[in-house]
């Protein structure tokens, strides 16, 4: 992943279809902007989802990060592909879309959710070094400062064919 490890690149923050204002707020906060600028990134695009918090935008003329945000887009893959770093909520959709695009990923768990099963997947993938893990928005900046992107291991996507073959056999389409 070294080639996208980003000096001068764009950071994309995504909360998918969820409501996760705490992440939008934290990622767009002045200390976080500063931390990202210190790491060498130049712009920040935030996909806000269902949230109502709208970050202060910036054209980057003040020497800081260029900051933009939007609510939803039918397809986020272009944003992910053009980014040097993705900061995402812990939803499996966003996680695997980013991993498949081979982009460095920081997953931030929503610690306010009622049934917070999402940390399971992020923890497992973090243990396998496929992504960087922050257990709440409050620890995002600290996580960004301490992350070592070159040590991340690229994720090898699975193929659904094994499941499909098992299903074909079960339903009698092919002999078992």
């Amino acid at each position, binding site marked *: 992943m070294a080639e996208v490890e980003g000096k001068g690149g764009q950071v994309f923050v995504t909360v998918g279809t969820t409501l996760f204002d705490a992440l939008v707020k934290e990622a767009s906060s002045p200390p976080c902007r500063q931390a990202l600028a210190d790491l060498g990134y130049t712009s920040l695009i935030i996909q806000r989802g269902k949230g109502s918090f709208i970050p202060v935008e910036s054209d980057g003329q003040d020497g800081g990060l260029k900051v933009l945000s939007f609510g939803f887009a039918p397809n986020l893959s272009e944003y992910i592909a053009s980014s040097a770093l993705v900061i995402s909520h812990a939803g499996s959709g966003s996680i695997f879309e980013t991993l498949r695009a081979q982009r460095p990923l920081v997953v931030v768990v929503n610690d306010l959710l009622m049934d917070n099963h*999402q940390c*399971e997947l992020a923890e*497992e993938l973090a243990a396998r070094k496929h992504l960087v893990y922050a257990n709440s928005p409050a620890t995002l900046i600290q996580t960004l400062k301490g992350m070592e992107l070159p040590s991340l291991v690229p994720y090898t996507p699975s193929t659904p*064919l094994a499941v499909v073959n*098992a299903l074909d056999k079960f339903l009698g389409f092919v002999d078992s």
Partner: protein
Amino acid sequence: MVMVMVMAMADGWGTWGWFAALVAVLVVRVFWVVQSTGRPVSLQPGLKRRPMRTLVVLGSGGHTAEMMSLVEALNLQWYAPRHYIAGATDKMSLPRAEGVEARLLKDAGDADGSVQRSQYSQIFRSREVGQSYLTSMFTTLWAFVHAVFQVLRIQPDVILCNGPGTCLPICVAGFLMKVVGWKRVVVVYVESIARVKKLSLTGLLLYKLRLADQFFVQWKDLKVKYPRSNYVGRLM
């Protein structure tokens, strides 16, 4: 149970007798269906399996992504026609499925439009993310009635689902079709890849109640904990 019915008639038990007989018949029938759930769909030798009408339940967000990844790998002639269903408040899933379907048909060279078109419909969701458990009970009941109606209308041979709660009433409706002897509906559940060490509530219910004919998990640890599940690999 036949004896119960005969006795009911002979002794003139009246309404209660008939009621008891009916309950007995239902109980036996439910046990029989549960017991036969999970048996592979057998075919007589030499017979070619005809296409199966497939109901794909899209669960929103990552659930939909996983499901579409599965659908893309299916043999489209076998799993046909396909009918997609998603929660009424989910604005993204059906357009996403339509996009995939359009691409698949194009790749399959269906220029003349001869392949039967897939259909799309919505269902009330049992529970929104973050909704309280108390109000969930009422919305679940309403969602269930709607699900039964939809399944009766669509008449699927196979139901593909992977959570969340949206798919539960659909699976129960499929089960009821088996109980009343309407047709065999094969329920296939794939637990979300997000579940690494514990089943989701929906998954656990389907597993414990034996409502799914095929129950796939995507992590080995889960297969160890739930031996009746099936682990062959991941979708993503």
